[in-house]
């Protein structure tokens, strides 16, 4: 805030129009403008106390909430292609979908933020190194002129978001923007380019350590690392620059076992049906939460 320091008019000063106007102009407060009394004045009582900055928040449990894992939901590795994703459910067929009732409108200048987590545990099975078609291993030198099958550490289960933007009936779930359902043919496989996995989070389908690698070789059979329950989490951001998008439902789904694959310089995640045969994933409970707020 500026301070006016003009001296007072004293006896003998000339009082003409110019000097008087200058003095009055000092007090016209030209900086009392829309910025300092409006844009910067959002603490005024006429502002609503809620509902205009954060325009929506919603959270719910998903899956089967047995935190002691007394029972869990089991999903077997997907072997029939193209496979539909498995929606997270409670073990009794009740899908853990987040309903927005008559619809949640994400308007221009807003962002929808979605966060999810889930307790899960993978079982690798025994086909990760099957000679007939599994992608799950490299052949590394064994030090004796031969090779040793070694886990690539690439096999994974993929969790991602689907939404329904058609109606409140919520019967038309599809992958959210920039995320694929991984059902497109990629050579002899089915999957999606990594550029279409932008609403996903992955966890390993199994891990095997090379046993005592020695000077650039792997002389021994690898050691399986026991997989335990782990928490997976993901985040997805959906900004709207123009127009509005109404969303009726949101849910987390999963697919697996998937594996890195590269074809003609493009990186993919593809289903590995050989690895999947005998692999499985157990999961329990988690949470799905959304926030919608303005970004300007």
């Amino acid at each position, binding site marked *: 805030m500026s301070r006016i320091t003009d001296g007072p008019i004293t006896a003998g000063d000339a009082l003409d129009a110019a000097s008087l106007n200058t003095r009055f102009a000092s007090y016209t407060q030209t900086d009392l403008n829309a910025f300092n009394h409006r844009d910067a004045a959002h603490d005024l009582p006429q502002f609503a106390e809620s509902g205009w900055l954060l325009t929506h928040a919603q959270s719910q449990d998903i899956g089967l909430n047995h935190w002691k894992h007394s029972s869990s939901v089991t999903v077997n590795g997907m072997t029939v292609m193209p496979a539909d994703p498995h929606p997270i459910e409670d073990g009794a067929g009740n899908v853990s979908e987040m309903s927005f009732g008559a619809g949640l409108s994400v308007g221009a200048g807003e962002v929808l933020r979605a966060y999810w987590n889930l307790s899960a545990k993978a079982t690798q099975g025994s086909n990760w190194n099957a000679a007939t078609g599994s*992608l799950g291993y*490299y052949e590394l030198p064994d030090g004796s002129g031969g090779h040793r099958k070694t886990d690539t550490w690439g096999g994974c289960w993929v969790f991602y978001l689907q939404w329904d933007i058609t109606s409140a009936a919520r019967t038309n779930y599809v992958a959210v923007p920039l995320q694929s359902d991984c059902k497109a043919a990629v050579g002899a496989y089915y999957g999606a380019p990594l550029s279409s996995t932008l609403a996903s989070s992955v966890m390993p389908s199994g891990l095997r350590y090379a046993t005592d*690698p020695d000077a650039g070789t792997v002389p021994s059979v690898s050691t399986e690392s026991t997989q335990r329950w782990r928490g997976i989490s993901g985040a997805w951001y959906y900004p709207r620059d123009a127009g509005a998008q109404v969303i009726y439902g949101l849910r987390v789904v999963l697919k697996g076992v998937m594996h890195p694959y590269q074809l003609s310089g493009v990186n993919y995640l593809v289903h590995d049906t050989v690895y999947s045969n005998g692999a499985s994933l157990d999961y329990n409970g988690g949470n799905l939460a959304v926030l919608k707020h303005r970004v300007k």
Partner: protein
Amino acid sequence: MKRWAQREATAGATISPDAINDELRAQQSSVTTLDRDQLPGNYIDEARLKDYAILRGYVATAHPAGGQQDVVVYDVPDGNMWDACAYPAYPGGWQDASASTATTLTGFKGGQLHIEWAGNGYIFGSMASGLNVPLPMSPRYLGLRITVNGVVIAEKRGPGCHEAFRVIGSTLAPQGDLSVRFQWRIEGPSQDDATETTAGTSVPQAHLYSMRYLAIGRWR
């Protein structure tokens, strides 16, 4: 609206310095009492708020384009490996996740900055327990960090296998455009690492993909 008048100028009245000074002081007082509570109720409300008056969000649904790390990329033959970071291509140290210039958060007005960086990371950790490597062996992690104007605001040990990650940082940042970098690093191989297949292809060691970020600046 109130009106202050100490001395009303009338025709034929004599004028003195106080006639002017008192009026000026009165007007000054009138300004100081014009506070925000006296403004009309709809002079300012949330609908009239100017863009970015209190906050600004910066969101990338894919960063960089396609969401993949594109700085250290080693070409491999078609098959079960990604074109990704392998030791022959990795110069060591922290690398940007994007080959383009640093991400700029434009129009930051000074205040609190919150950043979330999410994605999937892959690290090949199979060789962590080499025969000739003394304890504590050589566990592999895909280190992650976020810098703002060159200052690290968040750092994470990062994925130890093929798994999702999220790095969240928050800091007070100065006014002006901010330069943000999302960076990663891996450890070098131990003497025991088998880094090539029997076909002579270097094994990919790390990759980042599905990357996106959200940043929020708040200055009120």
